[in-house]
Protein backbone atom coordinates (compact mmCIF):
# COMPACT_ATOMS: atom_id res chain seq x y z
CA UNK A 1 0.00 0.00 0.00
CA UNK A 2 2.60 2.52 1.04
CA UNK A 3 5.00 1.23 -1.62
CA UNK A 4 2.56 2.03 -4.36
CA UNK A 5 1.93 5.51 -2.99
CA UNK A 6 5.64 6.09 -2.87
CA UNK A 7 6.26 4.53 -6.26
CA UNK A 8 3.65 6.69 -7.85
CA UNK A 9 4.95 9.66 -5.94
CA UNK A 10 8.57 9.01 -6.84
CA UNK A 11 7.62 8.60 -10.45
CA UNK A 12 5.82 11.89 -10.39
CA UNK A 13 8.18 13.60 -8.03
CA UNK A 14 11.40 12.96 -9.93
CA UNK A 15 10.36 15.72 -12.29
CA UNK A 16 9.20 17.91 -9.38
CA UNK A 17 11.77 17.02 -6.74
CA UNK A 18 13.87 20.14 -7.13
CA UNK A 19 10.94 22.50 -7.51
CA UNK A 20 10.40 24.97 -4.70
CA UNK A 21 8.50 25.85 -2.66
CA UNK A 22 7.54 22.56 -1.05
CA UNK A 23 6.08 23.63 2.28
CA UNK A 24 4.56 26.93 1.31
CA UNK A 25 1.75 27.02 -1.23
CA UNK A 26 1.56 29.53 -4.08
CA UNK A 27 2.05 33.04 -2.67
CA UNK A 28 -1.04 34.70 -1.24
CA UNK A 29 -3.09 31.52 -1.15
CA UNK A 30 -3.26 29.65 2.13
CA UNK A 31 -3.87 26.00 1.40
CA UNK A 32 -7.28 24.91 2.59
CA UNK A 33 -8.15 21.30 3.30
CA UNK A 34 -9.74 20.36 -0.05
CA UNK A 35 -6.73 21.74 -1.97
CA UNK A 36 -4.35 20.06 0.45
CA UNK A 37 -6.05 16.70 -0.05
CA UNK A 38 -6.03 17.17 -3.80
CA UNK A 39 -2.32 17.96 -3.98
CA UNK A 40 -0.97 15.70 -1.23
CA UNK A 41 -3.65 13.15 -0.52
CA UNK A 42 -4.78 12.02 2.94
CA UNK A 43 -2.50 11.62 5.95
CA UNK A 44 -0.26 8.62 5.13
CA UNK A 45 -0.43 6.74 8.41
CA UNK A 46 1.96 3.82 8.59
CA UNK A 47 -0.25 1.61 10.72
CA UNK A 48 1.91 1.35 13.83
CA UNK A 49 4.60 2.95 15.97
CA UNK A 50 8.21 3.43 14.83
CA UNK A 51 7.47 2.47 11.21
CA UNK A 52 8.07 5.98 9.93
CA UNK A 53 11.32 6.53 11.81
CA UNK A 54 13.58 4.73 9.35
CA UNK A 55 12.20 6.82 6.49
CA UNK A 56 12.92 9.99 8.42
CA UNK A 57 16.42 8.74 9.13
CA UNK A 58 17.09 8.03 5.46
CA UNK A 59 15.84 11.47 4.58
CA UNK A 60 18.33 13.02 7.02
CA UNK A 61 15.76 15.45 8.42
CA UNK A 62 17.02 17.63 11.26
CA UNK A 63 14.99 19.86 13.55
CA UNK A 64 13.99 23.20 12.10
CA UNK A 65 13.46 24.91 15.45
CA UNK A 66 17.04 26.07 15.71
CA UNK A 67 19.02 23.19 17.20
CA UNK A 68 19.17 21.06 14.00
CA UNK A 69 19.03 17.85 16.00
CA UNK A 70 18.51 14.68 13.89
CA UNK A 71 14.76 14.11 13.97
CA UNK A 72 14.90 10.33 13.81
CA UNK A 73 17.02 10.25 16.96
CA UNK A 74 14.53 12.39 18.81
CA UNK A 75 11.66 10.16 17.69
CA UNK A 76 13.54 7.03 18.72
CA UNK A 77 14.54 8.50 22.06
CA UNK A 78 10.92 9.28 22.93
CA UNK A 79 9.59 5.97 21.60
CA UNK A 80 12.16 4.12 23.73
CA UNK A 81 10.96 5.66 27.00
CA UNK A 82 8.69 3.82 29.37
CA UNK A 83 5.27 5.41 29.62
CA UNK A 84 2.90 6.74 27.00
CA UNK A 85 4.40 9.73 25.20
CA UNK A 86 2.90 13.15 24.55
CA UNK A 87 3.60 15.06 21.34
CA UNK A 88 3.69 18.84 21.11
CA UNK A 89 4.03 20.77 17.85
CA UNK A 90 6.00 23.90 18.72
CA UNK A 91 4.84 26.93 16.77
CA UNK A 92 5.86 29.48 19.38
CA UNK A 93 8.92 30.85 17.68
CA UNK A 94 9.42 33.62 20.26
CA UNK A 95 12.12 35.21 18.10
CA UNK A 96 11.05 38.71 17.05
CA UNK A 97 13.05 38.52 13.82
CA UNK A 98 11.44 35.25 12.76
CA UNK A 99 8.04 34.85 11.12
CA UNK A 100 8.38 31.47 9.45
CA UNK A 101 6.38 29.40 11.92
CA UNK A 102 3.47 31.84 11.85
CA UNK A 103 3.60 31.90 8.06
CA UNK A 104 3.70 28.13 7.81
CA UNK A 105 0.81 27.67 10.24
CA UNK A 106 -1.19 30.27 8.36
CA UNK A 107 -0.47 29.02 4.84
CA UNK A 108 -0.02 25.26 5.21
CA UNK A 109 -1.64 24.25 8.47
CA UNK A 110 -2.57 20.83 7.15
CA UNK A 111 1.01 19.83 6.47
CA UNK A 112 1.84 20.69 10.07
CA UNK A 113 -1.22 18.88 11.39
CA UNK A 114 -0.47 15.82 9.24
CA UNK A 115 3.05 15.81 10.62
CA UNK A 116 1.71 16.04 14.15
CA UNK A 117 -0.43 12.91 13.64
CA UNK A 118 2.41 11.04 11.97
CA UNK A 119 4.82 11.92 14.76
CA UNK A 120 2.26 10.80 17.34
CA UNK A 121 1.86 7.48 15.54
CA UNK A 122 5.62 7.05 15.26
CA UNK A 123 6.23 7.40 19.00
CA UNK A 124 3.02 5.74 20.18
CA UNK A 125 1.59 8.89 21.72
CA UNK A 126 -2.00 9.27 22.85
CA UNK A 127 -2.06 12.99 23.56
CA UNK A 128 -1.19 15.67 21.07
CA UNK A 129 -0.92 19.43 21.46
CA UNK A 130 -0.19 22.37 19.21
CA UNK A 131 1.61 25.26 20.95
CA UNK A 132 1.12 28.68 19.39
CA UNK A 133 1.53 32.31 20.44
CA UNK A 134 -1.64 34.20 21.21
CA UNK A 135 -2.49 35.60 17.78
CA UNK A 136 -6.31 35.65 17.63
CA UNK A 137 -6.63 35.30 13.86
CA UNK A 138 -4.08 32.53 13.59
CA UNK A 139 -5.69 30.66 16.48
CA UNK A 140 -9.08 30.94 14.85
CA UNK A 141 -7.68 29.64 11.59
CA UNK A 142 -6.01 26.70 13.28
CA UNK A 143 -9.10 25.80 15.27
CA UNK A 144 -11.26 25.76 12.15
CA UNK A 145 -8.61 23.71 10.29
CA UNK A 146 -8.74 21.20 13.13
CA UNK A 147 -12.53 21.16 13.04
CA UNK A 148 -12.49 20.47 9.31
CA UNK A 149 -10.06 17.61 9.81
CA UNK A 150 -12.22 16.18 12.57
CA UNK A 151 -15.23 16.20 10.27
CA UNK A 152 -13.20 14.52 7.53
CA UNK A 153 -11.94 11.95 10.02
CA UNK A 154 -8.30 12.72 9.22
CA UNK A 155 -6.90 13.03 12.74
CA UNK A 156 -6.58 9.88 14.82
CA UNK A 157 -5.82 11.82 18.00
CA UNK A 158 -7.61 15.05 18.86
CA UNK A 159 -5.23 18.01 18.99
CA UNK A 160 -5.36 20.36 21.97
CA UNK A 161 -4.32 23.90 21.13
CA UNK A 162 -2.26 25.52 23.90
CA UNK A 163 -1.50 29.23 23.74
CA UNK A 164 1.93 30.63 24.52
CA UNK A 165 2.69 34.06 25.96
CA UNK A 166 4.56 36.54 23.77
CA UNK A 167 7.93 35.89 25.36
CA UNK A 168 11.26 35.05 23.83
CA UNK A 169 11.62 31.93 25.97
CA UNK A 170 8.06 30.67 25.51
CA UNK A 171 9.20 28.16 22.86
CA UNK A 172 12.02 26.74 24.96
CA UNK A 173 11.32 23.03 25.50
CA UNK A 174 11.00 23.00 29.27
CA UNK A 175 9.05 26.28 29.30
CA UNK A 176 6.73 24.78 26.69
CA UNK A 177 6.28 21.69 28.83
CA UNK A 178 5.40 23.78 31.89
CA UNK A 179 2.90 25.78 29.88
CA UNK A 180 1.23 22.74 28.30
CA UNK A 181 0.82 21.36 31.82
CA UNK A 182 -1.16 24.49 32.63
CA UNK A 183 1.49 26.49 34.43
CA UNK A 184 3.59 29.46 33.39
CA UNK A 185 5.93 29.22 30.41
CA UNK A 186 9.03 29.23 32.60
CA UNK A 187 12.07 27.08 31.87
CA UNK A 188 12.80 24.23 34.27
CA UNK A 189 16.06 22.53 35.04
CA UNK A 190 17.15 19.56 33.01
CA UNK A 191 17.94 16.70 33.73
CA UNK A 192 15.52 15.10 33.38
CA UNK A 193 15.26 16.07 29.73
CA UNK A 194 11.81 16.72 28.29
CA UNK A 195 11.96 13.65 26.07
CA UNK A 196 12.36 11.58 29.27
CA UNK A 197 9.95 13.39 31.58
CA UNK A 198 7.97 16.30 30.19
CA UNK A 199 4.29 17.11 30.30
CA UNK A 200 2.90 15.66 33.55
CA UNK A 201 5.95 13.42 33.76
CA UNK A 202 5.32 11.68 30.42
CA UNK A 203 8.04 11.33 27.76
CA UNK A 204 7.36 14.30 25.52
CA UNK A 205 8.27 14.84 21.89
CA UNK A 206 8.64 18.53 21.13
CA UNK A 207 8.97 19.21 17.43
CA UNK A 208 9.04 22.51 15.61
CA UNK A 209 6.06 22.94 13.27
CA UNK A 210 8.30 23.21 10.22
CA UNK A 211 9.95 19.91 11.07
CA UNK A 212 6.49 18.34 11.29
CA UNK A 213 5.57 19.75 7.89
CA UNK A 214 8.70 18.23 6.37
CA UNK A 215 7.79 14.90 7.97
CA UNK A 216 4.36 15.10 6.33
CA UNK A 217 5.97 15.50 2.91
CA UNK A 218 8.75 12.95 3.41
CA UNK A 219 6.20 10.35 4.44
CA UNK A 220 4.46 10.82 1.10
CA UNK A 221 7.27 11.43 -1.34
CA UNK A 222 10.16 9.60 0.27
CA UNK A 223 13.73 10.29 1.38
CA UNK A 224 15.14 10.51 -2.12
CA UNK A 225 12.72 13.25 -2.97
CA UNK A 226 13.63 15.15 0.19
CA UNK A 227 17.34 14.85 -0.56
CA UNK A 228 16.95 16.09 -4.14
CA UNK A 229 17.79 19.59 -2.88
CA UNK A 230 20.09 20.82 -0.15
CA UNK A 231 23.49 19.43 0.72
CA UNK A 232 24.64 15.89 1.45
CA UNK A 233 25.02 16.49 5.18
CA UNK A 234 22.11 18.91 5.48
CA UNK A 235 19.50 17.84 2.96
CA UNK A 236 16.21 19.45 2.10
CA UNK A 237 14.77 22.91 2.30
CA UNK A 238 14.24 25.27 5.16
CA UNK A 239 12.05 28.28 5.77
CA UNK A 240 13.92 31.53 6.20
CA UNK A 241 12.91 34.98 7.38
CA UNK A 242 15.12 37.39 5.48
CA UNK A 243 15.47 41.13 5.71
CA UNK A 244 17.51 42.85 3.02
CA UNK A 245 19.47 46.02 3.62
CA UNK A 246 16.75 48.03 1.90
CA UNK A 247 14.18 46.80 4.41
CA UNK A 248 12.37 44.43 2.07
CA UNK A 249 12.09 40.73 2.72
CA UNK A 250 9.84 38.18 4.30
CA UNK A 251 9.46 34.45 4.67
CA UNK A 252 10.56 32.14 1.88
CA UNK A 253 11.65 28.56 1.43
CA UNK A 254 15.25 27.89 0.50
CA UNK A 255 17.38 24.89 -0.28
CA UNK A 256 20.01 24.50 2.43
CA UNK A 257 23.37 25.43 1.00
CA UNK A 258 22.15 28.49 -0.89
CA UNK A 259 24.71 31.31 -0.79
CA UNK A 260 23.81 33.96 1.78
CA UNK A 261 24.79 36.70 -0.66
CA UNK A 262 22.07 35.47 -2.98
CA UNK A 263 19.42 35.25 -0.25
CA UNK A 264 20.16 38.80 0.87
CA UNK A 265 20.93 40.23 -2.58
CA UNK A 266 24.13 41.60 -1.09
CA UNK A 267 25.47 42.69 -4.46
CA UNK A 268 22.52 44.99 -5.08
CA UNK A 269 21.98 45.96 -1.44
CA UNK A 270 25.33 46.01 0.35
CA UNK A 271 25.28 45.49 4.09
CA UNK A 272 27.39 46.68 6.97
CA UNK A 273 27.05 43.23 8.55
CA UNK A 274 24.79 40.18 8.43
CA UNK A 275 22.96 38.64 11.38
CA UNK A 276 22.50 34.89 11.07
CA UNK A 277 20.23 32.74 13.23
CA UNK A 278 18.37 35.33 15.25
CA UNK A 279 18.99 37.11 18.54
CA UNK A 280 20.84 34.12 19.96
CA UNK A 281 22.81 33.91 16.73
CA UNK A 282 25.87 35.71 15.48
CA UNK A 283 26.98 38.56 13.23
CA UNK A 284 29.08 38.03 10.13
CA UNK A 285 31.16 40.60 8.28
CA UNK A 286 30.05 41.33 4.71
CA UNK A 287 33.16 39.53 3.43
CA UNK A 288 32.29 36.41 5.40
CA UNK A 289 28.63 36.58 4.41
CA UNK A 290 29.71 37.00 0.81
CA UNK A 291 31.48 33.66 0.78
CA UNK A 292 29.30 31.48 2.96
CA UNK A 293 26.22 29.43 2.25
CA UNK A 294 23.23 28.93 4.49
CA UNK A 295 24.42 25.69 6.06
CA UNK A 296 25.82 24.72 9.43
CA UNK A 297 28.87 23.22 7.74
CA UNK A 298 29.82 26.67 6.44
CA UNK A 299 28.62 28.72 9.40
CA UNK A 300 29.85 26.78 12.45
CA UNK A 301 33.54 27.60 11.91
CA UNK A 302 32.52 31.26 12.13
CA UNK A 303 30.67 30.82 15.41
CA UNK A 304 27.27 30.97 13.73
CA UNK A 305 24.52 28.50 12.83
CA UNK A 306 21.45 28.50 10.58
CA UNK A 307 19.28 28.41 13.70
CA UNK A 308 15.68 29.21 12.89
CA UNK A 309 16.57 30.64 9.50
CA UNK A 310 16.77 34.33 10.36
CA UNK A 311 18.96 36.38 8.02
CA UNK A 312 19.19 40.13 8.43
CA UNK A 313 21.40 42.47 6.41
CA UNK A 314 22.23 45.58 8.42
CA UNK A 315 22.18 48.66 6.17
CA UNK A 316 25.46 50.52 5.82
CA UNK A 317 24.01 53.67 7.38
CA UNK A 318 23.12 51.92 10.66
CA UNK A 319 25.36 51.37 13.66
CA UNK A 320 25.96 47.73 14.58
CA UNK A 321 26.66 48.59 18.22
CA UNK A 322 23.49 50.63 18.65
CA UNK A 323 21.36 47.88 17.06
CA UNK A 324 23.07 45.12 19.04
CA UNK A 325 22.69 47.00 22.31
CA UNK A 326 18.95 47.29 21.73
CA UNK A 327 18.79 43.54 21.17
CA UNK A 328 20.80 42.80 24.31
CA UNK A 329 18.48 45.00 26.39
CA UNK A 330 15.53 43.11 24.96
CA UNK A 331 17.21 39.78 25.76
CA UNK A 332 17.97 40.91 29.31
CA UNK A 333 14.34 41.85 29.87
CA UNK A 334 13.28 38.48 28.49
CA UNK A 335 15.16 36.63 31.22
CA UNK A 336 12.81 34.50 33.29
CA UNK A 337 14.51 35.90 36.39
CA UNK A 338 14.72 32.50 38.05
CA UNK A 339 18.46 31.99 38.25
CA UNK A 340 20.82 34.30 40.12
CA UNK A 341 23.58 34.62 37.52
CA UNK A 342 21.21 35.41 34.64
CA UNK A 343 19.02 37.72 36.71
CA UNK A 344 22.05 39.68 37.90
CA UNK A 345 24.35 39.39 34.91
CA UNK A 346 22.16 40.11 31.91
CA UNK A 347 20.81 43.46 33.14
CA UNK A 348 24.31 44.65 34.01
CA UNK A 349 25.60 43.53 30.63
CA UNK A 350 22.69 45.26 28.91
CA UNK A 351 23.11 48.52 30.84
CA UNK A 352 26.85 48.70 30.21
CA UNK A 353 26.46 47.86 26.53
CA UNK A 354 23.73 50.52 26.27
CA UNK A 355 26.09 53.09 27.70
CA UNK A 356 28.72 52.09 25.18
CA UNK A 357 26.13 52.44 22.41
CA UNK A 358 25.33 55.84 23.83
CA UNK A 359 29.01 56.78 23.53
CA UNK A 360 29.45 56.91 27.30
CA UNK A 361 32.54 54.88 27.78
CA UNK A 362 33.63 53.75 31.21
CA UNK A 363 37.18 52.47 31.31
CA UNK A 364 36.18 49.15 32.80
CA UNK A 365 33.23 48.58 30.45
CA UNK A 366 34.83 46.03 28.15
CA UNK A 367 36.43 44.14 31.02
CA UNK A 368 33.12 44.13 32.88
CA UNK A 369 31.29 42.80 29.81
CA UNK A 370 33.92 40.09 29.40
CA UNK A 371 33.79 39.08 33.06
CA UNK A 372 30.00 39.08 33.30
CA UNK A 373 29.74 37.09 30.07
CA UNK A 374 31.90 34.35 31.56
CA UNK A 375 29.92 34.47 34.80
CA UNK A 376 26.52 33.94 33.20
CA UNK A 377 27.45 31.27 30.68
CA UNK A 378 26.09 27.81 31.44
CA UNK A 379 25.01 28.84 34.94
CA UNK A 380 21.30 29.05 34.24
CA UNK A 381 18.54 26.49 33.99
CA UNK A 382 18.21 27.18 30.27
CA UNK A 383 20.45 28.49 27.52
CA UNK A 384 19.20 32.06 27.46
CA UNK A 385 22.37 33.51 29.02
CA UNK A 386 24.53 31.40 26.70
CA UNK A 387 22.74 32.60 23.56
CA UNK A 388 22.80 36.22 24.73
CA UNK A 389 26.52 36.04 25.35
CA UNK A 390 27.12 34.47 21.93
CA UNK A 391 25.27 37.37 20.30
CA UNK A 392 27.11 39.93 22.42
CA UNK A 393 30.56 38.51 21.72
CA UNK A 394 29.95 38.35 17.98
CA UNK A 395 28.77 41.99 18.02
CA UNK A 396 31.86 43.16 19.91
CA UNK A 397 34.04 41.23 17.49
CA UNK A 398 32.41 42.16 14.17
CA UNK A 399 31.84 45.77 15.23
CA UNK A 400 35.18 46.21 17.02
CA UNK A 401 36.02 49.30 14.95
CA UNK A 402 32.70 50.83 15.96
CA UNK A 403 33.44 50.03 19.62
CA UNK A 404 36.62 52.09 19.40
CA UNK A 405 34.77 54.96 17.78
CA UNK A 406 32.13 54.92 20.50
CA UNK A 407 34.81 54.81 23.17
CA UNK A 408 36.11 58.04 21.69
CA UNK A 409 32.62 59.55 21.74
CA UNK A 410 31.87 59.15 18.04
CA UNK A 411 29.67 56.94 15.86
CA UNK A 412 30.00 56.17 12.18
CA UNK A 413 26.31 55.63 11.46
CA UNK A 414 24.12 58.25 9.85
CA UNK A 415 20.78 56.74 10.70
CA UNK A 416 19.63 56.04 14.25
CA UNK A 417 16.20 54.71 13.31
CA UNK A 418 15.87 51.15 14.61
CA UNK A 419 16.31 48.39 12.04
CA UNK A 420 16.18 45.11 13.94
CA UNK A 421 12.64 44.34 15.12
CA UNK A 422 12.11 44.63 18.86
CA UNK A 423 8.58 44.06 20.23
CA UNK A 424 6.96 47.30 21.35
CA UNK A 425 5.88 45.88 24.68
CA UNK A 426 9.50 46.21 25.73
CA UNK A 427 10.62 49.83 26.05
CA UNK A 428 13.10 50.56 23.32
CA UNK A 429 15.03 53.36 25.07
CA UNK A 430 15.65 54.90 21.64
CA UNK A 431 15.62 58.42 23.01
CA UNK A 432 18.91 57.74 24.77
CA UNK A 433 20.71 57.54 21.47
CA UNK A 434 19.62 60.68 19.68
Amino acid at each position, binding site marked *: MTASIRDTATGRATADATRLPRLLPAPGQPMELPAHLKVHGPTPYRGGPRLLIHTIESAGLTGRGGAAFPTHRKLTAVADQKGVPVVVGNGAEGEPASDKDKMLLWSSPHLVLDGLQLAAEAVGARRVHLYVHRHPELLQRLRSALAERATAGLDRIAVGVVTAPHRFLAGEESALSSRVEGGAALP*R*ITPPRIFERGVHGAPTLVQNVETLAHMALISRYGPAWFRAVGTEQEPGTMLTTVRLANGSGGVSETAIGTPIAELLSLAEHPARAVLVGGYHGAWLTPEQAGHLTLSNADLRPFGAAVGAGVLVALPTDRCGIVESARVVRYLALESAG*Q*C*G*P*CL*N*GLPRIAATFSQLANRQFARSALDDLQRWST*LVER*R*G*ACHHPDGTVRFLRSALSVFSDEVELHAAGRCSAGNTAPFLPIPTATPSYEEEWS
Partner: protein
Amino acid sequence: MDERLRVNPILCCGHGLCAELFPEHITLDEWGYPILSDQPVPRGLSKLARRAVTDCPALALALVRDS
Protein backbone atom coordinates in the same frame (compact mmCIF):
# COMPACT_ATOMS: atom_id res chain seq x y z
CA MET B 1 32.50 6.38 39.01
CA ASP B 2 33.18 10.08 39.57
CA GLU B 3 31.18 12.24 41.90
CA ARG B 4 30.49 15.79 40.81
CA LEU B 5 28.68 18.72 42.36
CA ARG B 6 25.68 20.11 40.58
CA VAL B 7 23.51 23.08 41.54
CA ASN B 8 19.87 23.73 40.69
CA PRO B 9 20.09 27.40 39.73
CA ILE B 10 16.33 27.90 40.13
CA LEU B 11 16.27 26.67 43.74
CA CYS B 12 19.56 28.37 44.63
CA CYS B 13 19.01 31.77 46.20
CA GLY B 14 22.58 32.56 47.18
CA HIS B 15 22.71 31.52 50.86
CA GLY B 16 26.39 30.82 50.39
CA LEU B 17 26.88 28.12 53.00
CA CYS B 18 28.26 25.75 50.39
CA ALA B 19 31.25 27.94 49.66
CA GLU B 20 32.05 28.19 53.38
CA LEU B 21 31.79 24.44 53.85
CA PHE B 22 33.59 23.29 50.71
CA PRO B 23 35.85 26.11 49.50
CA GLU B 24 38.06 23.61 47.65
CA HIS B 25 35.36 23.17 45.02
CA ILE B 26 32.91 26.03 45.51
CA THR B 27 33.46 29.77 45.30
CA LEU B 28 30.92 32.56 45.17
CA ASP B 29 30.57 34.96 42.26
CA GLU B 30 30.25 38.70 42.79
CA TRP B 31 26.49 38.29 43.33
CA GLY B 32 26.76 35.53 45.95
CA TYR B 33 25.91 32.59 43.72
CA PRO B 34 28.06 29.44 43.69
CA ILE B 35 30.61 28.67 41.01
CA LEU B 36 31.24 24.95 41.08
CA SER B 37 34.44 23.30 40.01
CA ASP B 38 33.80 20.85 37.20
CA GLN B 39 36.47 18.52 38.56
CA PRO B 40 35.27 15.33 40.22
CA VAL B 41 35.23 15.37 44.02
CA PRO B 42 38.17 13.31 45.32
CA ARG B 43 37.40 10.47 47.75
CA GLY B 44 39.01 12.28 50.65
CA LEU B 45 36.79 15.33 50.29
CA SER B 46 33.60 13.38 49.76
CA LYS B 47 32.43 13.97 53.33
CA LEU B 48 32.82 17.75 52.99
CA ALA B 49 30.89 17.66 49.75
CA ARG B 50 28.07 15.72 51.34
CA ARG B 51 27.89 18.16 54.22
CA ALA B 52 27.60 21.07 51.81
CA VAL B 53 24.78 19.24 50.03
CA THR B 54 22.89 18.46 53.25
CA ASP B 55 23.34 21.90 54.79
CA CYS B 56 22.14 23.93 51.79
CA PRO B 57 18.97 25.59 53.13
CA ALA B 58 17.42 25.54 49.65
CA LEU B 59 18.39 21.90 48.91
CA ALA B 60 19.82 23.26 45.68
CA LEU B 61 23.09 21.35 45.73
CA ALA B 62 23.51 17.74 44.71
CA LEU B 63 26.32 15.27 44.36
CA VAL B 64 25.83 13.25 41.22
CA ARG B 65 27.54 10.16 39.98
CA ASP B 66 28.62 10.05 36.40
CA SER B 67 31.12 7.95 34.58
